[in-house]
């Protein structure tokens, strides 16, 4: 216990608290905004619950698995991803500007937002910390192969890299290649191969042998 600080005696209550500076600061702001009638705390609870339980990469994985299984859906997805995803019925609405970019043996796609953190929330949920970090945002556009190495991913020499910088309100999701050895798999089983990172382009789908 520090004895020589400048705080008022009352502040000693705080030292035993688990609340961090930011917890207190955000809680205070919420109190002000609720007292002024600008927000309803119950709405905040609902937003948090949605992002913790409903909106996440499992949605994107279903989209990819469907595209792997259904050529007509894949064409529709590449043509207009917003429309195709809504038609799939996973979400009641999707923003207007979702674009699916398809990997091939010749081209690997990678998504970044160098200016902030633009990310396809509706199909992937909230972006991970690394996606919003300076190392990723700075290097993805100039050294994407080096970034892939940070993720432990090495592409064949003949696979070129295409980086999509999300500088407007268009949003991108990568459609990875369907792994070999998954013939006859159900969409549900295929979806288990689809990782968040492979839909950003910093990873590849899981090895079918690792999914029982």
């Amino acid at each position, binding site marked *: 216990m520090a004895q020589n600080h400048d705080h008022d005696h009352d502040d000693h209550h705080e030292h035993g608290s688990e609340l961090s500076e930011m*917890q207190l600061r955000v809680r205070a702001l919420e109190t002000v905004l609720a007292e*002024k009638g600008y927000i*309803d705390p119950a709405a905040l609870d*609902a*937003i948090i619950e949605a992002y913790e339980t409903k909106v996440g990469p499992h949605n994107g994985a279903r989209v990819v698995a469907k595209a792997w299984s259904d050529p007509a859906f894949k064409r529709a997805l590449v043509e207009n991803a917003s429309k195709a995803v809504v038609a799939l019925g996973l979400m009641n609405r999707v923003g207007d500007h979702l674009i699916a970019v398809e990997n091939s043996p010749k081209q690997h796609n990678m998504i970044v937002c*160098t200016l902030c953190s633009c990310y396809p929330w509706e199909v992937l*949920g909230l972006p*991970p910390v690394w996606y919003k970090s300076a190392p990723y945002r700075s290097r993805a556009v100039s050294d994407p192969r080096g970034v892939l190495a940070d993720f432990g991913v090495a592409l064949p020499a003949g696979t070129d890299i295409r980086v999509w*910088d999300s500088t407007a309100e268009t949003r991108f999701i990568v459609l990875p290649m369907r792994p070999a050895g998954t013939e006859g798999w159900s969409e549900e089983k295929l979806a288990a191969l689809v990782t968040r990172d492979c839909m950003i382009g910093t990873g590849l789908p899981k090895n079918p042998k690792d999914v029982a």
Partner: protein
Amino acid sequence: MDGIHDMGGMHGFGKVEPEPNEPVFHAEWEGRALALNRALGYTGIWTIDQTRYGIERLPPDFYLTASYYKKWAVRLENLLVEKGLVGADEIKAGHALRPGKPLKRKLAAADVPNTLSRGSFARPAQAPARFKAGDRVRTRNIHPQTHTRLPRYARDRVGIVEAIRGCHVFPDTAALGKGDDPQWVYTVLFEGRELWGENAEPTLKVSIEAFEPYLEPA
């Protein structure tokens, strides 16, 4: 603005460090900060570009060291005070000292499911699109002190228009609260060597989503 947020191509930040099994939020307050931003955004008091500009105007040393949601929380305080919706004295006190101002609408819990999908940024065009797929274009060498979505690394560079994405709200205008000023959006594709010089990986290609005012014929 040529700020610290415009990171494409910078050196020295080190390796990307993915966190295995990363939680959605790392602390309870992060979720509250996100939800506060969403709930206030719903009221229509500012546009998405005004909030981005709010982040860009944070001091560079703070930008680089604060966590993502800390930036969101501080940005929110700043914008609320700027707009006169909350007093700095109220933030300090942690309580309202005056009644709130009337807002267009307020987010109720029952409406949250309908706010999880993004709105449309498409708007009626003010003029026909100046470019078409396949056109060679040069990005302008602009350095506005205010918000722009043309990253530094892609200024004064020649690329090819790959697709027209529609006519959307123009961030450079909207960030200043001066209306939608809709502009055509193009995917413009650059060769890695056009952006990074002869040492770039020869097959690298990078695209940006460029608003028409950022482009001229090449």
